[in-house]
């Protein structure tokens, strides 16, 4: 007596071929990439997707076959993410990033950038004053590993030598530059991520960084080496310190969004700040790469103070102009 042909079964047999066709197209797009689909197939995809969606809503109301509904749900979800998913080309994306997105993100963080820079400068000043008053403070700011002999106990001649050390050929510089880059980039990413914990750890990192800088300058300053030391630092420091400040600013903006979300919900605010911060951080990695090249090569090969200052000034102009030069805002 049971009907041999359920309505839900007839519904299924009539549409099954289309679903399978969509499944095949999705599999093809996923394994070979969307570019491998023929124009006809690309046109067919959204049509099949809409058919599958309408099948799903019909099946939900007329069919009690659970596995059929689960199948259609997974098929529709996969098709949805294909049809509405992103398919930008990487090169195009990179071009957009450098042409507008990155500077715009940096500009929109100007308040946080100023705050991060202020924190760093204040920490550097405090450390500078403390070390000038009592050289023993140096040891509490700079760990022995980082100082590598450049501490108040060292002779002036030794300190001067470290500034103009003759590189032993070009060897070792590639290695040094690479190490500096990977290490600094990792620390910068870390400073950004730490911003999520209500800004405080990021601030601590900025203070630490600034204090070390101040302590070094104070040490060299006490031996009358302030100008050469500043040149030695600034040739790459302009780029590197700027990048670290931006990383700190991105972290601060995220921590701020979590703490004081304003009109948005906390989750929305965090997401917005996080994505903007990510754009800045992508650029920070690029800047640190440039800084590492300057530190690893230029500083070792250029040993004239004036030339070092010239390079430092040039990088400052380049970055400043690139980020803050007024321009027409890109269409959203």
């Amino acid at each position, binding site marked *: 007596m049971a009907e041999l042909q359920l309505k839900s079964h007839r519904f299924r047999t009539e549409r099954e071929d289309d679903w399978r066709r969509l499944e095949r197209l999705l599999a093809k797009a996923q394994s070979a990439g969307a570019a491998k689909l023929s124009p006809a197939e690309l046109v067919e995809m959204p049509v099949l997707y809409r058919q599958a969606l309408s099948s799903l809503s019909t099946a939900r109301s007329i069919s009690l076959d659970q596995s059929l509904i689960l199948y259609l749900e997974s098929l529709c979800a996969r098709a949805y993410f294909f049809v509405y998913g992103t398919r930008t080309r990487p090169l195009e994306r990179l071009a957009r990033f450098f042409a507008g997105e990155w500077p715009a993100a940096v500009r929109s963080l100007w308040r946080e950038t100023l705050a991060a820079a202020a924190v760093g400068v204040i920490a550097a000043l405090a450390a500078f004053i403390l070390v000038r008053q009592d050289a023993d403070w140096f040891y509490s700011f700079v760990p022995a590993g980082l100082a590598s002999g450049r501490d108040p106990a060292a002779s002036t001649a030794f300190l001067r030598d470290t500034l103009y050390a003759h590189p032993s050929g070009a060897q070792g510089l590639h290695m040094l530059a690479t190490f500096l880059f990977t290490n600094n980039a990792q620390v910068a990413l870390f400073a950004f991520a730490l911003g999520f914990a209500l800004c405080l750890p990021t601030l601590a990192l900025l203070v630490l960084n600034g204090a070390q800088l101040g302590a070094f300058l104070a040490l060299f300053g006490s031996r009358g080496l302030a100008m050469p030391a500043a040149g030695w630092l600034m040739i790459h420091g302009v780029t590197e310190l700027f990048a670290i400040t931006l990383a700190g600013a991105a972290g601060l903006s995220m921590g701020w969004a979590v703490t004081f979300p304003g009109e948005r919900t906390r989750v929305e605010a965090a997401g917005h700040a996080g994505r903007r911060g*990510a754009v800045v951080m992508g650029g920070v990695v690029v800047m640190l790469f440039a800084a590492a090249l300057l530190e690893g090569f230029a500083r070792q090969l250029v040993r004239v103070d004036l030339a070092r200052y010239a390079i430092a000034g040039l990088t400052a102009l380049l970055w400043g102009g690139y980020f803050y030069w007024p321009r027409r805002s890109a269409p959203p």
Partner: protein
Amino acid sequence: MRRPAFARAAVGRALGFDEARSLVTPEGVDLRLRVASYTERASAFIIDALIIMAMLIGFSLLAGLAAWGFHGSLGGEAASVIWLLGAFLLRNGYFIGFELGPQAATPGKRALGLRVIARDGGRLTADAVFARNAMRELEVFLPASFFFARGAGVDGALIALGAIWSGVFVVFPLFNRDRLRLGDLAAGTMVIKAPKRALRPDLAQEGPTAGGGVSFTEAQVDAYGIKELHVLEGVLRSGDRRTVAEVARRIRSKIAWEGPSDVADRLFLGAYYSALRARLERRALLGHRRRDKFDA
């Protein structure tokens, strides 16, 4: 294009689905996505971490071999430069690279049938993928560094405090409904189950068993509702002999079965499934979805 709107829905309770998060497409159909569980995400991460480690070890061996092969210090330096850059790229680029791909999932996630989506249902942007993976520093490397740090006295206490503090980030996904980790929060993303499912044969039409000479009275088919139908479907599809026998015995006694007693359990259940589904679907078409056996 209208933005697909997310709304929570306690859907499919009657269908026995786990809790779904609804994603309404611009066409107006709810996709009822399912959020990936904490254990699934942790397993996916462990798989990925193992892959990264294996790649790193293989890569180091290659770099070592290259350095050894070149003998000269220049070869050694080139090898270490490549090693440093490669390790950096692997650590930061592995997750980003794979999640930017068309499947929006790392091999570990793929193995567990997961994928990353933007929480508003829109496009998953490169910024979001970068942001969610930059946060890994906080969720993986920070706790790990505390975990491996050793210290005595005040240092030890500080390390313990740090471990507790950073441990909060690790278990964070357990404390919200969408199982968001910090990275998801910072990027506006979430991870869902997106398994590939095969279209399985319709049980009601399977072979000659449909009807198959076994027939039921109206009262007998009215014994159960949709919930029981789905349980029965699960039993039939699993095909476990002992469960099939037990369920068949219970149904026979519940509906006071008086037909031929030599019908095989599997055959009997198949026939009953077809009859029950036909009855329930017909009632549903007339506007009454009978949720379970207690529903009138």
